[in-house]
C-alpha cells in the first residue's frame, strides 16, 4: 500500500515541485528549461492569483463559520424532546448525500435569471419588482454560491455534533439543574465543553474542503462573472490546462499548498494552547 501511495501521490507531488521551477507546457512541445524561482516571484505580483487566493479565503471563512453555527444550532434543536425530530434527523442526511455536482446544478436552476424558482418566489411575494440574475452579477455570485454550499454541508456538522450530544452524560445535566444552573449556564459549562472536540473535527474537515473548493464553483459560474468567484483551485486549473502553462501552474499550486499547511499548523498550534 505504501508503494501504491508513493506512486500515485508521492511521485506526482515530487514532479509538481520540479515543474514549478521550469517553464514546461502541457503538451511538451518544447523541452522545459529551468527558470529558477521566477515562477514564484511572478506569482506574488500576479493579481489574478492573489485575488483567487483571497476568494478561496473568503469562501472558506464564510461557509465554515455559517456551517458550524447553523449545524450546532440544528443539532441542539434536534436533541430537544420534540415530536418529529426523528423524521428531521433522517432528512438531515439528504443534503449531505446529494452529490456536489447535482447540488451545484440544482442551485443554478433555482437561481436561473429567467425561470428560476428564487426569482419567481420573491417576485410573487412582492419582495422584488424585477428578476435578478444572481449568478451573473459581480456582487451577488459569490454569496449565492456560499448559500448553496451551506445548504449541502451544514448537515455534516449537525450530524457530527448531534451524535456527540447524544453521548452527553445525563447525570451531569441533572446535577447542574439541581444546583440551580439556568439553561444558558448549563449550555456554556456542560454542553459546550462536551461537544467542542467533535466540533473541532467537523471544522477541520470543512476548512480543508472549503479552501480547496473547485467543483461547486466551477459548475455554477466557472469562476465568473469577471473572475469574481474564481477560487485558487480554479485559477490554477485554468493556468495549467486552459493556458497550458504547467510550470507556473505548478508554482501556484505549491504556494497554495504552503498556504494550506500554514493554515492547518496555526490551527493545531491554537488547539495545543487550549489543551494546556
Amino acid at each position, binding site marked *: 500500500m505504501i508503494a501504491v*501511495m508513493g506512486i500515485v501521490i508521492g511521485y506526482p507531488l515530487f514532479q509538481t515541485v520540479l515543474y514549478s521551477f521550469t517553464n514546461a507546457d502541457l503538451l511538451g512541445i518544447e523541452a522545459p528549461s529551468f527558470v529558477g524561482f521566477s515562477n514564484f516571484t511572478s506569482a506574488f505580483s500576479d493579481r489574478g492569483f492573489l485575488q483567487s487566493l483571497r476568494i478561496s479565503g473568503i469562501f472558506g471563512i464564510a461557509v465554515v463559520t455559517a456551517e458550524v453555527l447553523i449545524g450546532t444550532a440544528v443539532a441542539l*434543536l434536534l436533541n430537544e424532546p420534540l415530536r418529529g425530530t426523528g423524521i*428531521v434527523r433522517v432528512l438531515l442526511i439528504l443534503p449531505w*448525500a446529494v*452529490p456536489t455536482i447535482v447540488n451545484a446544478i440544482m442551485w443554478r436552476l433555482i437561481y436561473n435569471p429567467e425561470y428560476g424558482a428564487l426569482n419567481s418566489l420573491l417576485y410573487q411575494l412582492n419582495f422584488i419588482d424585477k428578476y435578478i440574475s444572481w449568478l451573473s452579477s459581480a456582487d451577488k455570485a459569490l454569496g449565492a454560491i456560499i448559500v448553496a454550499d451551506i445548504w449541502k454541508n451544514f448537515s455534516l456538522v449537525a450530524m*457530527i455534533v448531534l451524535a456527540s450530544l447524544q453521548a452527553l452524560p445525563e447525570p451531569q445535566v441533572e446535577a447542574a439543574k439541581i444546583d440551580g444552573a439556568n439553561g444558558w449556564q448549563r449550555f456554556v459549562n456542560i454542553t459546550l465543553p462536551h461537544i467542542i472536540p467533535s466540533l473541532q473535527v467537523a471544522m477541520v474537515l470543512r476548512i480543508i474542503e472549503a479552501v*480547496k473548493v473547485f467543483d461547486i464553483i466551477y459548475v455554477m459560474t466557472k469562476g465568473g462573472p469577471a473572475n469574481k468567484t474564481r477560487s485558487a483551485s480554479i485559477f490554477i486549473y485554468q493556468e495549467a490546462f486552459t493556458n497550458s502553462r504547467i510550470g507556473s501552474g505548478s508554482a501556484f499550486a505549491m504556494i497554495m499548498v504552503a498556504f494550506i499547511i500554514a493554515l492547518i499548523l496555526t490551527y493545531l498550534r491554537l488547539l495545543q494552547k487550549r489543551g494546556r
Partner: protein
Amino acid sequence: MRKRIRISTVLQYIALVLLSVFIISPFLWLLIMAISSSADLTTKPLRWIPAQVDFSSFKELFTLGANSRGEVFLYALRNSLTTAITAVFISMIAIIPAAWVFSRFPGRKNLVLSLAIFTFMLPPIAYCIPLYKMLVRFNLMDNSFSLAIVYCTIILPFCAWLIKESIDGIPYELEEAAIIDGAGLFHRIRDIVLPLLLPALGTVALMAVIMAWDEYFYALLFTNSKNSMTLPVVIANLASGRQSNYGLIAAGGVLASAPPIILGMVFQRALIKGLITGGVKE
C-alpha cells in the same frame, strides 16, 4: 412559569418546521422540475405545480439510441458504478494489511500514516498535472480502471485512518492466543482480525463509494468520452449547453442523487458512527 415553557416549546416547533422546509424545498423543487413539461418550466411567473405529470425527461434518459442523451447518460451510470466499485475494492484489499501494521506496530510507521492523512489535506490540483502527463504517456486516459486507481488516492488515506482506529479497538490478546496455537501472520489477520472488523469495513466502504460517486475534478480531467465519463461530468455537461432543457437536467440530477440518498437513509446510523470514529480520536 408554565406559560414561558410553552412559548419556548412553540418557538422550537416553529424552528423545526423552518428547518425541514429549508432542507426539503430545494430538492423538492428539483423533483418537481424533473416531472414537469418544459412548457410548465418556462412560463413566467413560474407554475409551481405542474399542469400534468410528465415523465418524458426520465424516458429520454433511459432510451438507448445512438449518440442520444440517453446513451451518454446510461454509459455514465455504468462508468460511475464500475469506477466507484473498482476503486473501493482495490482500496480495501490494500488497506487491511496496511491499517493492521499501523495499528499493531506504532512508532516510525505512524509517520507514514500521518503522511497519508496529510495528503488528504492537499488540494488535488497540486498533483493532478504530473498524473495527467503520466496517464497521457501510458495511454491510460479516458479509462475507467485508471480513473479508479486515481480515486484510490482520495480513498486510501481516509480509509487507512478510519480502519486503523477500528483495529485499535480489537484486543491484541486475541491475536496472541492465535500465535500460541501456531497461526501464521496471514491466518491471524484473516481468521481473527477480519471477522471482527467487518462492520467497520462495511461502513468505510459505503462512505468510500459515496466519495467516489461524488468526485468531479479528476473525472473532468481524465475522461472525455462515453467510455469512461462519470455521472457528475455528464450532468455538468448537460447543464452547460446554451439551450438547456431544465426538466432533463433535473431528472439527471435526481437519478444521480438517488443511490447515495437511499444508501444514506438506510445506513444512517452506521455512517454517523463512522464519521464519529474518524473524528473523535484524531
